[in-house]
């Protein structure tokens, strides 16, 4: 078996050649080979012959169902439009650009025996192979046409760098954990093994247990595995699956977002294989690659030229579809700096983030939130190093600010439902902070310090949720707080009627006093403490602190401006605060 370039229909060559190696059959029905595909492709030909010609919407989770339909479209000179997900809104938005949607399964009426279809000798390099969708800088979906020439050039580059046949190994089997609806999964998980004539997985392998089973099968069939994965999956690779017993893995690819270094190192140790990260985008295809063990800078793909302009990356690439001739420099909205032949990435230039490898426009999320009733302002932020979850800070009209858990819950349901019409699950913020105005620092900005403060209760379950403050008089501060549902002190108190213990409120008053006024004198106890109402999880309240020379007066009251009720009030006795 040798590598055949995409436009020479490698899947047909394999079917007509002397036949598959016997081990392939030992792999079982979770695997696809070119010889298994030919019959299915022919049946799709027969069905497509009864249909209008043009661009077709193609979405299928299973490579076994996706692949023959895609190849039949290509052989009949048609384009596949690949949505990233199959939510009704996504598909509806593309309906006008296609003649129809390819059915999930080959319709029964498709003839089982048919005349041999006319199969072209080559595919036209300047024709559009696939149309992909991604989120543009404004958040609106942008379509990207990929010519056969671009896909072919990129696959040739993969073969040159990481051959699946004709080099080492010469007996590969490819397991993909990522979707072929996106460019990376399509190239690495499906088209490269097709061009090389090696087996690849027929079904979804996203879960680690499935990956482990496929590795075992590849090993039993005497094959060396190549894996296509992504940062969220590698970050959660369980150690208990005894990877060492799963046979030799030639390499693992990761793409979608940079893989944190500790996860790269852990994956290499667990799987005993190099982790190759691919950096690219839907528009550009692959731009560079790296193995973090050797170098954290990115090596451009062969044929890709780069330069840095105004701190951002510019490139010329044979994988770019709409590159005019002579090629123009493509502006990639990533900040970067050159390091000889290589480059270093410094983050996005715009407000696009990658959540679970999906491009999410924070601007688009904020705009969508603005459309909701009573929303005055909205800011979305990434919270973890891995950028896996988003937080939203939403400023609301006073009447709409939730004061108790049921109100908060109802509001969240409304906002989430609104967003889910336009965004995938991972893009919808997990953590929400409702405020009367988005907090700003002295420069008028929502900075990292404020963001950390708003979400501090996530990392410390002893804290109340801080939602802003004001200073109505000298030595007086008014802090808006919310009682987190996951507050540690609620545990085991009253199961059905959880409430914040009084001692916890006193402690909060003391700690917040220190936050605003620096180190207070030693705590000498409380005076005149009254507990008037129970403070429950999910409740919003205002803590007013007044600083006096020998004590701090504190008052937890309801968030409502009118009809104030108090939860707890009293005085914290201190030594006189010294300036020393």
């Amino acid at each position, binding site marked *: 078996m040798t590598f055949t370039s995409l436009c020479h229909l490698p899947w047909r060559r394999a079917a007509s050649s002397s036949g598959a190696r016997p081990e392939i059959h030992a792999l079982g029905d979770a695997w696809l080979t070119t010889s298994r595909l030919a019959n299915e492709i022919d049946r799709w030909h027969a069905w497509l012959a009864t249909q209008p010609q043009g661009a077709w919407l193609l979405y299928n989770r299973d490579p076994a169902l996706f692949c023959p339909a895609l190849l039949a479209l290509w052989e009949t000179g048609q384009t596949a439009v690949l949505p990233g997900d199959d939510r009704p809104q996504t598909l509806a938005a593309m309906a006008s650009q296609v003649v129809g949607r390819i059915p999930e399964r080959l319709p029964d009426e498709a003839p089982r025996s048919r005349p041999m279809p006319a199969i072209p000798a080559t595919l036209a390099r300047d024709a559009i192979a696939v149309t992909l969708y991604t989120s543009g800088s404004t958040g609106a979906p942008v379509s990207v046409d990929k010519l056969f020439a671009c896909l072919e050039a990129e696959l040739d580059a993969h073969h040159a760098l990481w051959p699946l046949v004709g080099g080492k190994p010469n007996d590969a089997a490819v397991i993909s954990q990522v979707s072929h609806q996106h460019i990376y999964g399509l190239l690495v998980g499906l088209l490269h093994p097709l061009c090389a004539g090696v087996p690849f997985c027929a*079904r979804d392998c996203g879960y680690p247990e499935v990956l482990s*089973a496929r590795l075992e099968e590849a090993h039993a069939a005497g094959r060396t595995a190549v894996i296509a994965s992504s940062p*969220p999956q590698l970050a*959660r690779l369980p150690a*208990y699956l005894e990877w060492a017993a799963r046979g030799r893995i030639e390499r693992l690819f990761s793409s979608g977002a940079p893989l944190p270094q500790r996860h790269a190192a852990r994956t290499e140790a667990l799987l005993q294989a190099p982790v190759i990260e691919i950096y690219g985008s839907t528009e550009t295809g692959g731009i560079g690659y790296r193995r973090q063990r050797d170098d954290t800078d990115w090596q451009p793909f062969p044929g890709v030229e780069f330069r840095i302009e105004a701190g951002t990356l510019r490139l010329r690439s044979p994988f770019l579809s709409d590159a005019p001739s002579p090629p123009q420099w493509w502006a990639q909205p990533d900040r970067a700096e050159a390091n000889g032949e290589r480059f270093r990435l410094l983050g996005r230039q715009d407000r696009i983030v990658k959540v679970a490898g999906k491009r999410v426009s924070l601007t688009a999320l904020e705009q969508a939130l603005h459309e909701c009733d009573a929303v005055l302002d909205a800011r979305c932020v990434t919270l973890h190093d891995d950028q896996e979850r988003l937080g939203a800070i939403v400023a609301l009209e006073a009447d709409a600010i939730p004061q108790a858990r049921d109100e908060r819950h109802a509001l969240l349901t409304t906002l989430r439902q609104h967003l889910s019409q336009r965004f995938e699950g991972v893009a919808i913020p*997990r953590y929400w902070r409702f405020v009367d105005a988005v907090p700003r620092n002295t420069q008028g900005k929502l900075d990292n310090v404020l963001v950390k403060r708003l979400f501090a*209760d996530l990392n410390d379950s002893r804290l109340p949720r801080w939602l802003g403050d004001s200073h109505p008089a000298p030595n007086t501060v008014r802090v808006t707080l919310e009682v987190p549902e996951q507050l540690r002190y609620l545990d085991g108190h009253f199961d059905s009627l959880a409430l914040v213990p009084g001692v916890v409120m006193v402690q909060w008053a003391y700690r917040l006093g220190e936050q605003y006024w620096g180190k207070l004198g030693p705590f000498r106890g409380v005076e005149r403490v009254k507990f008037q109402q129970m403070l429950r*999880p999910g409740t919003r309240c205002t803590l007013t602190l007044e600083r006096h020379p020998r004590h701090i007066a504190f008052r937890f009251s309801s968030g409502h401006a009118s009809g104030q009720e108090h939860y707890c009030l009293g005085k914290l006795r201190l030594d006189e605060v010294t300036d020393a």
Partner: protein
Amino acid sequence: MSETLDLSLELKRMIIKTLELEDITPEDIDPEAPLFEEGLGLDSIDALEIGLMLQKHYGIKLDSEAEETRQHFASLNALKALVEAHRDH
């Protein structure tokens, strides 16, 4: 009876803690409703986290076919059935 009720509550609490669902209480999780997408709104990252959680707390290793796992993750009751079946072994 109380044992299965306890398991249900235990799983709900574990899911809330593992996935940092800061606004959800056990009562909010309908045992028959889908955990993913239209139900509780969980996503593909959460699915991986639940897999790790099941191994850590119950020693359960998921099936080697993604379709089976999708069925186990369909609702809280489906998840509970998986844990119970594992305990009976």
